[in-house]
């Protein structure tokens, strides 16, 4: 397994005065630069438009949504109202599903981060027999589809009496989050300079102090990326909730989905509900944006 470092080839011979361009070509360059910018902004607007439309729809009454498109608010801003949100937030089923999502997502994320950090530390820094085989197994299980586990685990939960509960949903998410998490963190930990660990060992540090003082702080960015990804997966999951979460434990995605099935044009519930389910991920994203990009890149380094 090659590590993440891109082997930068030796730079080519510096070319004497490489881009010696004339006045005309500089103008062309400037113009095409402007064109690039315009194209990009148009594309970005197009990419944001559906989500913006959802937001506007959520702020219009059911009658308005059934009578005209959301873009008519630009000419009639009086349509905008918070009634849908007020009603939704006083709906106990919905608020309960919001808190279920929170109580499913937080432990799932924390447990994955802690358990995967411990295992990744062992895989990256300790020598023990069978280590490489065990790690290979961890990586190979990345491709096991969730479907394979749904029925056996459902039966198991039935025996243990946790079918339908939040605990069951959490445990399933943690287990299926681990292969990617261990893979990501192990690769990151392996990149921490060995000297730092050796120095800590020389000073008589136990494995635990080394983990706490060296690996955890230096692995911070990778751990943060992992946390964001796991958070998003669990927060946005539908399938696992559909199978394992009972009505009392159902997260927002499942609540929204059962609303959609009734499909009687209930935009006044679905649009604000969908938008509220998006707000927490948005906050998390903007708080940790740096780590999100790093995570996308690190996760795909083979």
């Amino acid at each position: 397994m090659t590590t993440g470092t891109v082997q930068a080839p030796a730079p080519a011979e510096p070319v004497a005065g490489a881009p010696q361009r004339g006045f005309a070509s500089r103008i062309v360059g400037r113009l095409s630069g402007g064109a690039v910018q315009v194209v990009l902004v148009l594309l970005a607007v197009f990419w944001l438009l559906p989500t913006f439309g959802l937001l506007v729809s959520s702020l219009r009454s059911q009658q308005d949504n059934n009578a005209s498109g959301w873009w008519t608010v630009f000419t009639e801003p009086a349509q905008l109202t918070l009634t849908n949100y007020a009603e939704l937030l006083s709906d106990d089923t919905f608020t309960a599903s919001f808190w279920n999502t929170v109580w499913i997502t937080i432990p799932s994320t924390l447990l994955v981060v802690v358990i995967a950090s411990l295992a990744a530390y062992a895989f990256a820094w300790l020598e023990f027999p069978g280590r490489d085989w065990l790690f290979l197994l961890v990586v190979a299980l990345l491709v096991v589809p969730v479907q394979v586990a749904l029925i056996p685990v459902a039966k198991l939960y039935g025996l243990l009496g946790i079918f339908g509960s939040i605990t069951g949903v959490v445990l399933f998410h943690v287990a299926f989050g681990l292969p990617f998490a261990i893979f990501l963190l192990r690769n990151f930990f392996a990149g921490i300079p060995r000297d730092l660990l050796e120095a800590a060992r020389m000073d008589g540090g136990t494995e635990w102090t080394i983990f706490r003082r060296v690996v955890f702080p230096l692995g911070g960015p990778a751990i943060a990326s992992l946390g964001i990804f796991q958070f998003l997966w669990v927060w946005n999951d539908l399938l696992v909730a559909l199978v394992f979460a009972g009505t009392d434990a159902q997260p927002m995605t499942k609540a929204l989905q059962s609303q959609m099935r009734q499909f009687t044009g209930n935009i006044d519930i679905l649009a604000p509900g969908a938008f509220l389910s998006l707000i927490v991920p948005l906050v998390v994203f903007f708080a940790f944006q740096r780590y999100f990009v790093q995570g996308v890149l690190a996760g795909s380094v083979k």
Partner: protein
Amino acid sequence: MVQAGGVSSERAARGRRRSRRSRVPSVRLLVFLLAPALALYSVFIIYPLFSSLQYSLFSWAGTRQLGFAGLENFERWLQPGLYRERLLRAFGHNMIFFAGTMLLQTTLGLAFAVLLHRSRAGKRFLQTAFTLPHLVSPIVVGYLWSLMLSPSFGAVNAGLRGVGLESLALPWTGDPALSLPTVIVVNAWQWVGFPMLLFGAALAGIPEEYGNAARVDGASAWQVFRKITFPLLIPAIGTVSVLTFVGNMNVIDVIYAMQGSQGQPAGSTDVLTLLFYRTAFQNPDPAAIGQSSALAVLMFVFIFGVSMLAIRVMRRAEGRLR
């Protein structure tokens, strides 16, 4: 000690990377570090894998396991009949879904990455705009695009009519010929940020001197892209392919939200995971557990096989590039 022997032979093999003071960790430490992960792995991934295989080889009456059935459950899916038709149709849709997503996502992701690479202002904002759909739950993505594409008050058809393209204002999700391509576009809309970021990082890693040297030799911008930039992006394209494949084989939420659990209209958007979901959880047949387990095993074997093959091909391709 046996362990010490194993370690020291390993030590000889990788002498360069190792330092003299590495210690053999105590068993207690190893258990502390690895036991939680391995326990969860065993209960939730390894045990179910064998369990599914076992279920698929037995006959069932509801949740009660009856006698050994041999390959009967598999034959159901693989011998001519309604089950095989459904399986092949869903499988075909998954393949089209994968091919379509790859084509769109890779082309757009590459285009965005190249444009962003040349962009001077507001790079961060633009990058954010394209990755924002990653945050949205696929079920919400399905819903908000159903709103966009609704025949009466959807923005898409209203926009097309507005610019005089009345004939293109089609029933995007209602016509069996259009529904699958529509779902593919929606899926690509959501995930294009991933190849974009990946290609962006790869582009940033290509030394400017390469392009400059080629330009001095009289190469056109297109030639520079095709002969220098593109080959250096191939590893990133390989990574995107494998991850997109695994993701697309398991696609369900976005289709469920837009087209229901039957993959409407007329099964034109039915995919394997939907078929599995219906067989396992919306199936009055008392043999449901055996049938759905057989389907899960078939899916696992296929995904596993293709992924291993792809990784092997990628390794070889990368080796050749170096």
